[in-house]
């Protein structure tokens, strides 16, 4: 949903956007497939690899592979059907829907920061490693936010 929000605007040629997106979907499916077969290769070098890690690779890879293929065939279907193409374009570029998604994203960020703050207050008392991890997440968030501010400050 967020990818759609940030990768298409009313000015764009929607057909071109979908073509690019189908290439991304195929790449994602290929990456998923590669992730799925990784445990088999890893077992060759790391015979003690635990079942949880293997399941993590296989499950994650299979999900990405499945989603990539699903998106690819969905996009191809849309590209072949003019009526569906127009309807999808309206759905994706509708300004009210985009505003709703932007506001939802802002609220999600605000609540995430609040949860992070509470987590930091608890972690500082309980576990130093968790505390440092949360501080790292907060620092990354602030850096990304400042980077985005700079980027959009120049772009708009």
């Amino acid at each position, binding site marked *: 949903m967020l990818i759609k929000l940030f990768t298409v605007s*009313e000015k764009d040629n929607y057909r071109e956007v979908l073509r690019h997106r189908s290439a991304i979907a195929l790449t994602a499916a290929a990456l998923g497939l590669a992730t799925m077969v990784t445990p088999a290769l890893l077992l060759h070098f790391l015979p003690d690899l635990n079942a949880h890690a293997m399941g993590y690779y296989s499950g994650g890879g299979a999900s990405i592979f499945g989603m990539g293929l699903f998106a690819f065939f969905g996009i191809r279907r849309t590209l072949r059907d003019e009526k569906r193409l127009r309807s999808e*374009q*309206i*759905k994706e*570029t*509708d*300004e*009210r*829907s985009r*505003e709703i998604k932007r506001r939802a994203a802002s609220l999600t960020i605000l609540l995430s920061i609040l949860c992070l703050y509470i987590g930091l207050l608890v972690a500082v008392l309980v576990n130093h490693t968790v505390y440092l991890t949360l501080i790292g997440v907060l620092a990354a968030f602030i850096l990304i936010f400042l980077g985005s501010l700079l980027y959009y400050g120049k772009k708009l």
Partner: protein
Amino acid sequence: MENRIAQLRKERRITQEELADAVGVTRQTIISLENGRYNASLLLAYKLSRYFGLTIEDLFLFEEEEPLC
């Protein structure tokens, strides 16, 4: 901001779906505009006023805000 979209649409016997399709938005957006829950962007305001053959000022009723002291 108030507007005359619902009034003009009914006068001209246009459905919300037809208007939405003509200006490239969803029907829900037209409903929200008519109910005054959502304010159109400049681009959408322009498209709507051109669709009805009016100026933006004729379609959207702008209320002057109190000046800040």
